[in-house]
């Protein structure tokens, strides 16, 4: 994928600028800081990968950006500037005009997001109607579409996401579609409003590898064509390597390393990232070469002192056990949260 355009305007103001975002769950076991001071920016036309093992806070970071955290969870601090406006300061009504409109979303399980008793065509049409309202709300007096116009738009949208025989599919129900087709419908709905940012949370995890590759190619194609920004959440380092421009690695609710994709894979700095990359087989891994990370991901309600990774880290020192490391900037926009780079 070509690098995103670095036009001057985009350099001045990123599309998304998240600072110190924190989200906690308040449970009987105590406070679980599921998102713990996360900061990052996403430029126009950039594909950002967020990787990390189960429970590292990837989904909750995305949900926090969209302000979709329900009790006992709560966003406890930070800012989420989208086009310069802090979403955390906005009304719920304003957020409804953002979700699924200027920011599109796709989740891992399409069946959980599609309405099982409603025809595909009607669901896509509804997503399009939302867009119509959004335009009217924006002061642009476009007339609401006629039924035929709407149907034609639905079919053309399904065609954009390569749903075969789209006219027939509009009359079907979600369960009549394969997982791959359901995910295409979800993408069509997310694209209906021509979002400038698409958040995709494990969009291909439930799919077979040949279907995954169809969906990833489709997302790349649409991303390029529309110069859309994408936040792609996945636990699959292979998917990241093949799709993203930039990567954030999460561990225990924090971004512990962030770099351009080639740099991250060629020259990982954080001991966790280094170990993570050694623990997944690639085309040139010889038998016996996989190095496991001993121990396990810590409980959020009982985080280790200092650096959360220190109990599993081969380089840990007294400082690591006592003090939480800050973010250290390395050349080429590479940042790492580790005392080794102080």
């Amino acid at each position, binding site marked *: *994928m070509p690098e995103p355009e670095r036009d001057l305007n985009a350099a001045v103001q990123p599309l998304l600028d998240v600072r110190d975002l924190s989200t906690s769950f308040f449970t009987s076991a105590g406070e679980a800081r599921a998102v713990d001071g996360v900061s990052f920016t996403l430029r126009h036309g950039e594909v950002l990968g967020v990787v990390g*093992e*189960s429970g590292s806070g990837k989904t909750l970071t995305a949900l926090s950006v969209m302000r979709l955290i329900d009790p006992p969870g709560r966003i406890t601090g930070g800012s989420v500037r989208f086009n310069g406006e802090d979403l955390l300061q906005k009304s719920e009504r304003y957020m409804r005009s953002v979700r699924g409109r200027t920011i599109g979303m796709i989740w891992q399980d399409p069946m959980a997001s599609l309405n099982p008793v409603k025809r595909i065509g009607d669901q896509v049409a509804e997503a399009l109607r939302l867009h119509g309202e959004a335009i009217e709300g924006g002061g642009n007096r476009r007339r609401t579409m006629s039924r035929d116009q709407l149907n034609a738009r639905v079919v053309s949208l399904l065609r954009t996401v390569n749903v*075969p025989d789209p006219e027939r599919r509009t009359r079907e129900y979600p369960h009549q579609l*394969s997982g*791959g*087709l359901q995910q295409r419908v979800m993408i069509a709905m997310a694209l209906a409003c021509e979002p400038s940012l698409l958040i995709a949370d494990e969009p291909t995890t439930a799919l*077979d*590898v*040949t*279907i*995954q*590759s*169809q969906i*990833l*190619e489709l997302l790349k194609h649409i991303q390029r064509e529309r110069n859309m920004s994408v936040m792609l959440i996945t*636990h*699959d*380092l*292979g*998917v*990241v*390597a*093949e799709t993203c421009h930039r990567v954030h690695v999460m561990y225990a609710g924090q971004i512990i390393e962030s770099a351009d*994709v*080639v740099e991250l*894979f*060629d020259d990982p700095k954080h001991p966790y990232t280094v*170990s*993570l*990359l*050694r*623990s*997944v*087989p*690639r*085309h*040139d*891994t010889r*038998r*016996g070469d*996989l*190095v*496991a*990370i*001993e121990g*396990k*991901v810590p409980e959020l309600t009982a985080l280790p002192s200092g650096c959360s990774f220190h109990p599993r880290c081969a380089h840990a020192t007294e400082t690591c056990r006592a003090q939480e490391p800050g973010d250290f900037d390395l050349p080429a926009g590479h940042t790492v949260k580790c005392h080794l780079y102080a």
Partner: protein
Amino acid sequence: MRAVDGIDFRVNSGETLGIVGESGCGKSTTGLAVLQLIQPSAGEVKFDGRSIVGLPQGENRRLRQHMQMILQNPYSSLNPRMRVSDIVAEPLRNFGVSNRGERFDQVQQLLERVGLSADHMKRFPHEFSGGQRQRIGIARALALRPKFIVADEPVSALDVSVQAQILNLLLELKEGFNLTYLFISHDLSVVRYISDRIAVMYLGEIVEIGAADAIYAAPLHPYTQALMSANPDPDPHQRRKRIVLQGGVPSPIDPPSGCRFHPRCPLAEARCRQDKPEFRDLGGGRSVACHLVD
């Protein structure tokens, strides 16, 4: 419906044969049929040179000692109300190790062997992480000192850092216990890492089999080629042109005529629609079912 259809392969003593393929292609069914946990409607399974289809119950039971299974889901395959020591001891009890003290010693050794400690013996499955539960399942499978283990997606439910722990454990135990594995997975990278030979399945059939290195270096069947090219590799320098297959896997209830892969095959010709390609031995341990490969 034929979940697997006329497949033919052998697993050599001491090797790991990997079975790869997409969901529903019949990997698990093959594993279960090999272990005689389901009865194939036709065909033969030989173990140590002897046919094991339709054995009388007593013999079947004896055979069970030599053949064990490790399952994907360490959460559902362990009885939540049993203590770890009882879970691992169960096969020993069933197969005549009646002395409690002896069972206890063996369980303790087994748990240590899979990287758990004696402290864990009195605990229940819910008190363990996914990787630890998979270790418990492995300890139980090893209890009767089997020669042959079918591992059905043993690491698919685990986080990558834990996956590597279990893969390395399986490799180490293979040496230590002289095991032969049938290793089933949809993850091509994992199968490549662990297998000596690989069988690629599509819609209930094996379309290609051969040495793992040879298949990954030069896949011959168009489906194997597409599968390999679709497999995302964690190396951004490997970004390459993918072979993107059209559509999804057809229903096994009414499989396509001729070559079952023909509706999705980028190279299909007229004969592919009519004639079923023979599963041909190309020498060097490689067999392929495709009209275009000679």
